[in-house]
C-alpha cells in the first residue's frame, strides 16, 4: 500500500480492520503522537538524514520501554511537495521497520497539520468506541522554514486545542525556521533546535513518552523531563 511505503508493520496489522484488534486486545491507556515533518527541498542533505536517524531512534527507544511500547500510537505526516500521511496511527510495538524519508518540493505544513488533527480526532473516537482510555495527544511539528500558503486555520486549530489542554502541541524549528509562524501552532512558543540535534530531541520525546505511559492515570498531569539537553531556547 502506498500510504505505508516508509513503514513496515507486522503483517496482520496492515489492514484497517485488523489494526482495530489492537484496541481490543490491549486496553493500555494510549498516548497518540502525530509527527508532522517538513520534508521540503530545503531539508535535503544533512537535515533529512539526521531527522531520519532521530525517528528511527525514537521508535527503538519507545519499543525498549516495557510500558510505553504498549501505549504509544504513532502517525507520521510529511510536507514535501504534497502533504501526505505516510503512516496512519499504529501501536509503536507493531512497527517493524522504517525506511528513510526524502526531501523535495514546497512546504504544505498547514495541509499536513490539518490531516494530522483530523486523524487525531478519528483516533480518539476509536479509543472511545473501544473503551480504551487515552492521554492528551501530542502533535510534534518540525520545520526548517515556514509553511506555504493556507496554514492559518490549521495553526489556529492546533493552538486552540493546546490552550484547552486537549493537545500537547510542540512546534520545533530547525535553523532557518520562522519561529514566530511556527509558534502560532501552539499556545506555547516554538522551540529552536540546537543545530541538528534531532537525536537529542527524539531521545527527549521517547523519555517523555515513558513518563506519560508510566503515569498512573490518563487524567494525571505528568512531569516531563527537562528540555535543557536539546533546546537552545
Amino acid at each position, binding site marked *: 500500500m502506498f500510504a505505508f511505503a516508509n513503514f513496515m508493520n507486522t503483517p496482520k496489522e496492515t489492514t484497517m480492520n485488523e489494526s482495530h484488534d489492537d484496541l*481490543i486486545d*490491549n486496553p493500555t491507556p494510549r498516548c497518540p503522537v502525530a509527527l508532522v515533518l517538513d520534508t521540503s527541498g530545503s531539508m535535503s542533505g544533512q537535515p533529512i538524514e539526521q531527522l531520519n536517524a532521530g525517528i528511527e531512534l525514537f521508535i527503538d527507544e519507545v519499543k525498549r520501554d516495557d510500558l510505553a511500547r504498549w501505549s504509544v500510537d504513532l502517525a507520521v505526516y510529511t510536507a514535501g511537495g504534497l502533504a501526505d500521511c505516510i503512516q496512519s496511527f499504529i501501536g509503536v510495538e507493531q512497527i517493524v521497520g522504517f525506511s528513510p524519508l526524502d526531501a523535495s518540493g514546497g512546504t504544505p505544513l498547514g495541509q499536513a497539520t490539518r490531516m494530522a488533527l483530523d486523524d487525531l480526532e478519528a483516533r480518539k473516537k476509536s479509543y472511545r468506541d473501544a473503551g480504551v482510555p487515552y492521554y492528551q495527544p501530542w502533535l510534534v511539528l518540525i520545520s526548517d522554514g515556514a509553511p506555504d500558503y493556507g496554514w492559518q486555520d490549521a495553526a489556529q486549530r492546533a493552538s486552540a486545542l493546546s490552550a484547552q489542554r486537549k493537545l500537547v502541541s510542540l512546534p520545533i524549528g530547525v535553523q532557518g525556521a520562522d519561529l514566530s509562524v511556527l509558534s502560532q501552532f501552539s499556545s506555547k512558543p516554538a522551540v529552536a533546535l540546537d543545530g541538528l540535534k534531532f537525536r537529542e530531541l527524539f531521545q527527549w520525546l521517547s523519555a517523555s513518552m515513558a513518563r506519560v505511559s508510566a503515569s498512573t492515570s490518563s487524567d494525571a498531569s505528568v512531569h516531563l523531563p527537562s528540555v535543557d539537553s536539546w533546546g537552545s531556547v
Partner: protein
Amino acid sequence: MSLTVRSATGESVQLSDTPFAQGGEAAVHAVPRFPGVVVKLYHPQVLQKRADTLRAKIDAMSSDPKLVSLKQHPGLAWPRFSVFDERGQWRGYAMRKAAGVRMNVLAHAMAYREQFPNLDRPAVVAYLLSLLGTLQELHTAGVMVGDYNLANFLCDPNSDTVTLIDCDSWQVNAAGKTFRCPVAAPDMLAPELQGKELGKVNRTLESEYFSLAILLFKALMLGRHPYDVVGGAGPVENIRKGYFPYGQGGGGIPKGPWFNIWSHLPFKLKEQLIGTFKEGAPNASARTSIPEWIDFLKLYQRELGKGWHDTQIKPANPKTKEYRGTQSISQPIAA
C-alpha cells in the same frame, strides 16, 4: 561526583553515582557497602519547598514505637532513618531494598508475558493475598495507602510475595500527628475524593476499599480498568457515576477477552466487585472490606486447587458450565 550521606549518628556511606530509580520528587540510590539498603534523596527543588514537612513525616514514621512492626515488615520498604549530606542538610531517608516487578506489568494484557511467562490465576490470587495481608496490617496500624499506584507494588517473580514501596506518600498517624497522603491517580480514587484537594482530606477505610477493589479487578482482568466502558466517558467520569458495565443492568463491556475472563471468576467474587463498583460508588458502607476480600480470594484459591475454575490467565471461551461453588451444599467435599 560521588555522593556521601550520613545518618543522624554520623555514620557515613557512599552512594552509587547513578540512581537506579528516579521520579518527579526524588531519586533512589544503591549503597554499595550495604547491598540490602537503598537511600531515597529528594530533588533539591522539592527540598527547597517542603524539606521541613517531609522530614517531620519521615522522622515520625521511623521513630513512633507504635509503628515499629512496620519498620521490620518484610513486605514494606518503610523509612528506617533520615540521611543528611556532608553539610548536615536533611536529604531523605534509608530503607530496605525491595525487589520485584511492578504490578502494572503483571496486571497488563501484553507486558506480563515477558516477566511472568507462566502467569496463571493461582499465581495472581497468591500475589493478591500477600498484598491484602500487608494492607490489613497497615490499616490496623492506622496507615492508609491512599495512592494505589500499581507501580509501587512489587511482585517477586520467584515467589508469591508483594512488597510495597513509596511508603512516605501514605497517610500515617505518628508522633501524635496525622500526615496526609497528598497524591493519587484520579482513576484509582473513590468518588467522594474526586476533585478534592487531597492534602486536606482524610483517607478512610472505605476510600481504601474502593481503590483496592479497582486494583483487584485490574489484577484479575489483565489490566483492564473496571470502569472502561465503550462509547463515551472515561474511567474517572464512570467512577463518579458509579457506572460499572459488568453484571446485570450494565452494558458497554469492551470487546475482546474481557467478558470471557469475567465469566470465569467465581460468582461470589463477582458479586463483591459488582456491589463495590455499583452500589458502593455512592454508598461507601457497601464496599467490600479487606477481611471479606481475603475470605473470598482464599475460597477462590481452594476452588482453583480443586479444579473448579479455569486456571488460565486468559481463558479462550466464556464459561459454559454452572459454577460449581454455588452447588457446594449438594456436592460432597473432601475435607
